[in-house]
């Protein structure tokens, strides 16, 4: 029914797989050329690998996040003259994108596992703390990232690229500023702004060995709930804005 959305998500997914495969091959070849396979026995938490895959999937989420904004650039006459409501159209487009992002997360995770199995055969995967809820948290992170971008860009025309280009540096700077030694007022401002920054809720620490993004004081359950809320809020914000756009 929403064939075009499927084609668009498929196109992004294929590019994601190609890039991931190339990176895998490069890393394995580099490893082979630089002293061979690492046979040092070690433990690695698979949650850390899932977190890394979540970051990779969030890059694809960044690409797909302009879904509705792209329609605003001269395609609304086609999109909105089908026998479906705008709400349904937006919901389906977002759902298809989110499915593709979850697929990218799983494929990214699989590629990282392949890298571990081939490149570090003596490393043993272990579950980290609160494995199930942390896995859900990492699965939600790229979806929240996508929802933030689609929510910010759905009402724009020709500016989706700006949102996509600036979202990463702004989010990272906000994380840094939150922990910077600033006055109480500024600290409060950056804490408030970071409330909708998905990066804050994707932190992970493995006793200092693996740190994906700075530490979060929030409990993992709280982070997971907030990420889920960001997904829903971004979805709703995108739909509401898009319904108001004129062709």
């Amino acid at each position: 029914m929403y064939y075009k959305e499927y084609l668009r998500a498929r196109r992004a997914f294929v590019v994601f797989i190609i890039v991931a495969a190339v990176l895998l091959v490069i890393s394995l070849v580099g490893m082979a050329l630089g002293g061979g396979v690492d046979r040092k026995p070690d433990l690695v938490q698979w949650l850390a690998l899932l977190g890394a895959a979540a970051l990779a999937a969030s890059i694809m989420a960044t690409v797909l996040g302009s879904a509705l904004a792209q329609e605003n650039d001269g395609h609304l006459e086609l999109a909105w003259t089908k026998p479906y409501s705008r709400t349904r159209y937006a919901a389906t487009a977002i759902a298809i994108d989110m499915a593709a992002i979850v697929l990218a997360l799983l494929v990214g995770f699989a590629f990282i596992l392949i890298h571990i199995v081939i490149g570090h055969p003596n490393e043993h995967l272990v579950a980290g703390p609160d494995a199930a809820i942390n896995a859900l948290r990492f699965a939600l992170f790229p979806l929240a990232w996508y929802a933030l971008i689609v929510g910010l860009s759905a009402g724009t025309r020709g500016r989706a690229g700006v949102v996509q280009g600036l979202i990463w540096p702004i989010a990272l700077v906000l994380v840094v500023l939150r922990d910077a030694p600033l006055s109480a007022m500024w600290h409060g401002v950056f804490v408030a702004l970071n409330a909708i920054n998905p990066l804050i809720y994707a932190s992970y620490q493995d006793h200092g060995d693996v740190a994906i993004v700075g530490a979060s004081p929030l409990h993992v359950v709280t982070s997971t709930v907030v990420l889920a809320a960001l997904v829903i809020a971004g979805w709703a914000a995108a739909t509401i804005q898009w319904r108001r756009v004129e062709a």
Partner: protein
Amino acid sequence: MMDTNAAISVNNLKKYYGATRAVDDVSFRIGKGSIFGLLGTNGAGKTTTFKCMLGLAFPQAGEVRFDGELLRPELFERISYVPERSALYEWMTGRDHLELTRRSFRRYDAVRAQALVDLFAFDVRKKVKQLSKGQQSALALTMAFAIRPDILVLDEPSSGLDPVHQRHVLDLMIDAAARGATVLFSSHQIGQVERAADHVAIMHKGKIVLAGDVEELRAGEKVVEATFDRDAPEISGLAGDPHVRHVMRQGRILRAYIRNGGDGIANLIGSAKPASLRVLNQNLEDIFLAAVGDESGAALGAARGEG
């Protein structure tokens, strides 16, 4: 009041962009099976009218009904729209677009779609960005006609097409109307409108300035053309005559565009002793030019250095 015989009824439609009145209290109705041509200069408000009608822009006021119903998404199962500018996706092929149409509309007719592809002779395997403007128009028209809609809204449907395919588009419109579909289209090519449309409306500066049956308009509208051996004089009472739609003076030539009552006007102008005087039937182009006022004539005169 609801007009049950109208396939499309537009009532008091208004769309303003700041101080600009893009669509200013526009009303018209189109009977079922009719071909209705909307004429107007660039920026007259035709495209905005279409967008407001189809829910693509939000009017400040007014009501639009299709077969007596207010627009709702499900009605697009029976309504096709071809916009003036291509809304196709550049990265998708023609075949992708046809598949998108097939999956979106229950009424999609694959056999007819293929016949239209053959008629317009474009390569469905090519991406849209590889197609010429005319081929993109052909693809959009193929998508529109392939669902056998009851109502067609076509904004400059021949844009970019070669004369042969322009003729095909007119034939498709006429054929659709013969099968009971209602066609609303805009065009800059008055000859096309004259050939295909049975009813016409002329828009100017957001308003409908003239509307009616094409044959009746042609029969009622005449132009009295007088040539003087001096600059054409102003004739007292001419511009204010209720039969006179518009008076144009260009150098030694005076033209009075009139509706019903040509003899009296000819006598009035004759009293100014012109060197020659003719009463001419108007074609749609004359009617259009008269309806949109003397700005184009004045601009032409200025361009010619006539003062």
